[in-house]
Each structure stands twice: as C-alpha cells, then as structure tokens.
C-alpha cells in the first residue's frame, strides 16, 4: 500500500511538471516507426553496480511480466539466462562491448534490453531504514545498434513501518528483519512498473500506436539511463 502511494506521488510529480516532460513520441520516435519498432525483446544478463551479489538473478525474475504486458514478445528469460550461463556469461558487463546484431543472428531478436542495477541497498538511521532500488534500462535495436528506449528509475521506501515497541533494541532488530532480502523484490517490481509506463506499447498491446501523446517521459531520466549504462 505504502509503495503504491509513493509511486503515485512520483507520477504526480512527473505529471505536475516540476521537470521537463516529453511525450512518448517525442522521446522515442523510433518506437513509432513501422520499420524500426521492435516486436521481440531479448533481456540479456543484468549489469550489477550494487553490492548485492544475488540481485541480478532476482531482478531477472521480475522483468518478463511488465515488458510482456506492455505488448512485446519477451524471449523466455529463464531459458535465455541458462543459455548465457552455459556460455560462461553471468554478469551483463561481460557482453557490453558486443554489437547488438549478434543477438539477431543467434536469438532472432529485434531488440536487446540492457538493465543496470545502480542501487540496491538499505540505509539505517538508528530506528528507521530506507531501502533504495535504482535501475536503468536501455533498449537497443539489433538492426543498427541504435537506442530505441531508455529510462532511469529509483524508488526509496521507508521500511521501518513506523511502529515502535518502546524497546530500542527490539526496534532495531525488527527494522533489520523488515528489511530482509525479499523486501527488495516488491520494490523492484514498482521500479519496473514506473519505468515501463514510459515505454511505447508493442504489437500485442490493445493500444499499440495510440500512446504517442502521453506526456510521461521525464527527459532527465531518459538521458540519465544512457550515462549509467556507459
């Protein structure tokens, strides 16, 4: 519930226009070109810039649903990540130098999605804790290596729940428990949902081609994703 409110507030801020906002069409013109718009999407292993070693696999498991729901054919991530592992590729930075065209010939994918985990951590302030999950997404065409879509998103959630037992030690313990690993996943899902809201709909979405006027793309977030993935 709390996550929903925070996400909603984030959207409200974007829409209220404290920063430069673009329409989907202005931000991602290639996604509206009949010849350049991708149908299929290959999610390659995540680049992990956080200190959490198991974050990439867990993040991988959250990506299929939002991107498929947005109308794209997402090549089955569970199978794809096994194939990469068999080839000795477990971390996204191992393939960053490869031209995207490689994935056209090997997987038949029109586009490649590069995801970078920028932050995945907890800050304790005595009795309170904040969990921060930040990710950037860059979708690249396998036809010509050009960027089709990019977005950077970060969400901070207060996990201390605001209830004090009156015993400081107990509170510290419960804060730490509340901020266990699995708590990151629902937050990661919110990060995905917020970012994907800026992605133009794909072939299998009922509103494909009709969302170009939606003013939902924060220009700074679109540009930041490109810097993060360098």
């Amino acid at each position, binding site marked *: 519930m709390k996550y929903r409110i925070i996400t*909603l507030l984030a*959207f409200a801020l974007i829409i209220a226009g404290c920063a430069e906002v673009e329409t989907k069409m202005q931000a991602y013109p290639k996604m509206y070109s009949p010849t350049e718009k991708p149908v299929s999407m290959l999610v390659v292993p995540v680049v992990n810039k956080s200190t959490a070693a198991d974050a990439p696999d867990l993040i991988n498991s959250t990506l*299929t*649903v939002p991107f498929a729901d*947005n109308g794209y054919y997402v090549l089955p991530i569970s199978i794809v990540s096994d194939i990469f592992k068999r080839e000795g590729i477990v971390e996204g930075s191992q393939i960053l130098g490869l031209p995207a065209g490689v994935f056209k010939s090997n997987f038949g994918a029109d586009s490649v999605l590069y995801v970078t985990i920028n932050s995945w951590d907890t800050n304790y302030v005595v009795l309170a804790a904040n969990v921060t999950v930040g990710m950037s997404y860059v979708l690249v065409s396998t036809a010509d290596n050009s960027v089709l879509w990019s977005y950077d998103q970060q969400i901070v959630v207060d996990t201390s729940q605001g209830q004090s037992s009156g015993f400081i030690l107990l509170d510290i313990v419960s804060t730490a428990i509340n901020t266990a690993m699995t708590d990151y996943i629902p937050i990661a899902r919110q990060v995905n949902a917020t970012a994907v809201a800026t992605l133009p709909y794909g072939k299998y979405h009922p509103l494909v081609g009709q969302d170009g006027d939606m003013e939902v793309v924060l220009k700074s977030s679109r540009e930041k994703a490109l810097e993060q993935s360098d």
Partner: protein
Amino acid sequence: MSKKLLVLLFLTGIITACSTVSPGGYYWGKYMYTYHDLVKDPSTESRAKHQETLRDIISESQELNLRVPPGIHAELGNLLALNQEVDAAITEFNNEMELYPESRVFIERLMSGVSQGGQE
C-alpha cells in the same frame, strides 16, 4: 489537462490492478512467485511448482479466451525437455512458434538442442 488526468487515472489503474487479467490482457497466475522461487532455490520441487504454474496459465488462458503470454509454452517445453519428455516438449515449442511467429529462430535453436539428445 483532461489528458493528463486520464494518464494519471490510467497509471493508477495499472498500479492498483490486482485482478486475474493483467493490464496487457494476460493471465499470469502465480508466475512471478514460482519463477522467483525457482531462481532463488533451483530444485526438483521448485521446478515442479513452476511447471504447475505454467500449465495453469495455459489452461486458464484458454478458459478466459486469452492469448497465452509470451514464453509460457516455451518455458514449459524447456522443463519437459530437461525431464526427457521429448515429444511433449516439441509440442509445446510448436505451440509457442504458432502463437508468436517472431520466436521462430530461438525456438528452432531450442528444438535442435532437444532432438540432439538434451541440451545439458
């Protein structure tokens, strides 16, 4: 202004949607949960649970007259192949290709692995 309001309502709709059919028009069942468990702790048990989810998605999608989500038939085919159930695996791979023609290159690669006697 009214357009912005619509967008806000739409986004709120996505975020609060808890119904069985997703905003993209798919039925995902317990996909996110059993897949997460499989990634976190790969075992015969978590694999069986995920396989059960995939079968539920396929049958429930047919029931609800929805397109089976991308990758579901392929994932099921892959699990069946790992289990040496080759014929059933090939059937699922063909289902995926029929439903999503853009999967052809990938699925044919998987199928050649299976017919060569497993892809381990």
